[in-house]
């Protein structure tokens, strides 16, 4: 597969390490009253869709950036590639 890196352009997916659902960015707050349930959901439950999937890839053999790749799990087509840090900020993860 080819991942179109936001800065480096098309790069072979073999240069990347895969982690999984990009929802892993949305780590719950440990302080909330339902933290235990929220962390269980965060750590273990997945939509695992047959279709478009936002997922985390690490450019291990490249610039060491974590990317959020929007990819179709049926066709493997990739429609969007973003820096995970940008996605994280958009999700309100700035300190």
């Amino acid at each position, binding site marked *: 597969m080819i991942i179109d890196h936001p*800065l*480096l*352009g098309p790069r*072979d997916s*073999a*240069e990347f390490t895969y982690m999984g659902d990009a929802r892993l960015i949305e780590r719950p707050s440990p302080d909330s009253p339902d933290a235990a349930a929220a962390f269980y959901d965060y750590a273990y439950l997945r939509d695992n869709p047959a279709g478009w999937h936002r997922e985390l890839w690490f450019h*291990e*053999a*490249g*610039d*060491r*950036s974590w990317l959020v790749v929007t990819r179709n799990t049926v066709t493997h087509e990739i429609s969007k590639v973003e*820096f995970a840090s940008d996605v994280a900020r958009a999700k309100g993860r700035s300190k």
Partner: protein
Amino acid sequence: MHDLIPIPALGVATQTIGTITIAENAGVALASVAARRGRADICADVLTSILGAVPDVGKAVLHDPEAGFWMAAGQWMIGAPMDTHEDLADQLKAKLGDAASVTEQSGGWVVFDITGAAMPDMCEILCNAPIRRMAAGDVQRTMIHQLGCFVIRRAADDHIRILGPRASAGSLHHALITAATAVA
């Protein structure tokens, strides 16, 4: 002055196979610079003062005596002659202050210079860098024999420089030699 004598990563003689010459270059001091949060401007100014320009994404600035290339967003590798810049990291830190994190990298890498007409053929069986499409000053991080390396296309048309992990200098050199032999 200390009296410890450094040794090159491999200490191997320059070898010519067909048109290709493979030479270990032990004379490069390296340090990485990573801009601190909110200090990118200062960092860029300092880099410009040293290199003449800030290396753009996927590019090297082949400047003298210091040269540099882009590693990641806000992060660059700076190289300079070891003879004059053994303390390159300290020199950079002095200029950058707390605008950047500076890390000495001289010990992390082995440097090979590869020249010759068949260099592109050799690259094609070594790594996924699109060598024939790369121009002078283009840099790509890529895998060679499973090792993460930087491939830098130098000024001369038939010259590339490869930075590979120093601990695997022997395996990398072996891969270079077999590839050169295969295309010779």
